[in-house]
């Protein structure tokens, strides 16, 4: 595979003893990873299929004695999962759309349109990176309450736009676009919106993909903020509903609900894993 030299030289690894050690370590790490990261997931998926009595038994069974799908169907009906999943979907997709529209427009303006005080505005936006988000959660809640947005999806959508990291990512990307292309379009009579729509956005597909994934994952995974702003049980996203309902529900049903809540994110990851992993690896270490 990769031929670059690492801590160990290829020569050491080629020796019989080196090879033996390598394969021992390799097997060990595979087992460790399977045990530490895959097994809990397996345990969760199969745990939901055990009978209530089997799941509470000691010592536990590795494979369910009878496979019940009842846990999953009960979770779906009893915990009103379709409604909560639907809420989460509305919240996440709205946040994604708002972020894409408003952050892209703002980044384009800051990068290309020379607004007066653009530098001050950008400074103000970047300064919010220094403020830990969770520490501001209470005054933010009061502001949302004053605006009458409690229990509304807008309470998730609009604060999601105030994401300095994504906005800066977009601005940086727009900054690096070749000026000639954009100028050529303007000479041909394209307006600013047209340039953004027909030239800048198509060229920005990679960064828009990254921002989209970040936006979706962030909303789907968030807990504290939706816990605060959705007191109305019927409007809660799945993360909040799971915790609220976890007390009075049979264990197998709860576990099934946990699995169902994880499926969309895990599926998203498996489909886009190349991009997600490349994004994480490149994002923070281009030092």
């Amino acid at each position, binding site marked *: 595979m990769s031929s670059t030299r690492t801590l160990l030289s290829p020569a050491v690894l080629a020796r019989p003893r080196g090879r033996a050690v390598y394969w021992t370590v390799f097997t060990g790490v595979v087992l460790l990873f399977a045990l530490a990261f895959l097994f809990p997931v397996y345990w969760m998926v199969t745990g939901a299929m055990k009978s209530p009595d089997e799941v509470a038994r000691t010592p536990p069974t590795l494979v369910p004695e009878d496979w019940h799908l009842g846990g999953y169907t009960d979770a779906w009906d009893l915990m009103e999962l379709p409604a909560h999943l639907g809420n989460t979907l509305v919240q996440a997709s709205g946040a994604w759309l708002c972020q894409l529209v408003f952050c892209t427009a703002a980044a384009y303006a800051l990068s290309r349109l020379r607004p007066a005080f653009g530098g001050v505005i950008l400074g103000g936006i970047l300064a919010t990176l220094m403020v830990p988000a969770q520490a501001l959660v209470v005054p933010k809640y009061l502001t949302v309450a004053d605006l009458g947005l409690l229990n509304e999806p807008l309470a998730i959508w609009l604060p999601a736009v105030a994401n*300095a990291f994504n906005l800066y990512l977009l601005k940086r990307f727009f900054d690096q676009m070749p000026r000639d292309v954009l100028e050529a379009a303007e000479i041909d009579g394209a307006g600013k919106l047209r340039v953004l729509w027909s030239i800048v956005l198509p060229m920005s597909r990679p960064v828009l993909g990254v921002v989209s994934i970040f936006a979706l994952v962030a909303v789907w995974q968030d807990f504290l903020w939706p816990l*605060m702003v959705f007191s109305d049980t019927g409007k809660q996203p799945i993360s909040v509903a799971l915790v609220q309902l976890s007390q009075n529900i049979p264990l197998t049903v709860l576990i099934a609900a946990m699995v169902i809540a994880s499926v969309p994110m895990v599926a998203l990851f498996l489909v886009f894993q190349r991009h997600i992993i490349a994004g994480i690896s490149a994002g923070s270490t281009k030092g």
Partner: protein
Amino acid sequence: MQRPGPSPTWTTGHGAAGHGASSGHRTAPAFEVRPEQAPPPAGDRRRRRLADQGRAYAFLLGGLICFALFSWYPAIRAVVIAFQTYTPGADPEWVGTANFTRVVQDPEFAAAWRNTLTFTLLALLIGFAIPFLLALVLNELRHARAFFRIVVYLPVMIPPVVSALLWKWFYDPGAGLANEALRFLHLPTSNWSNGADTALVSLVIVATWATMGGTVLIYLAALQSIPGELYEAAELDGASLLQRVRHVTIPQTRFVILMLMLLQIIATMQVFTEPFVITGGGPENATVTVLYLIYKYAFLYNDFGGACALSVMLLLLLGLFSAGYLRLTRTDGETA
């Protein structure tokens, strides 16, 4: 891999940021004066410039309103309310530093800070050393790389609430998997999240499990950018494996290590989901964190003044780390 010398356009300060914003347009585009047109009269130009500004602000408007309402205003408001008695609907009343003194005298205050700092420290010990070692080993393995990367990142994609509930079930003193594993190894069982001494460590384990995928991947990328010649040269000089780690690997990844350390401090000091879901702050306040206490003040005691006083303290402390982080990424590497 560090890039010494002047910082690139990635900047944070206000003045410097202004430079960044305008850098794309330092020279006037050549096409502004079209050949067939005479230069427009001054009034026209001013009108055009105004129209340009209007358009620029139209594009900015949505984002600007959101930042103003949900970032800038709450930051100011936190400081203001910290000095007020605040009840939604009623007129706020200035009370000086009464909120601060009341919050500090709360017996939970000391516990919350102690727990938060211990949690952060433990997270640094456990959640920092393990991913680094793991990345070090993974980088040497030449097979099944995709498998390792996907599997280690899998828990990160599981919603935090789900991983908290999952581990709560593992920690169950009766039928929990954690004690089952100890029994299998003939070790004494533990109270895990139910014991006052072990609860905090139990939460750190959950948080580490759930987030370490990202850290491992970032380390892995950093390790892969180390030039192989350095290892070769060190080996020729007779450096042993450990010496190579100490004198090549660690110095070469120093920037990433420091960056991740600051990020982790900032993140773990805001821990909320695990204590809320797994232990509810107990047993005996052993897992009440600062953010949890802020939540309690606001939503259990309806004391928004106290909640904001606590928020301001957390803000000040974390602001220091954030400033350090931004300084680091600005001077030492081009980060996006």
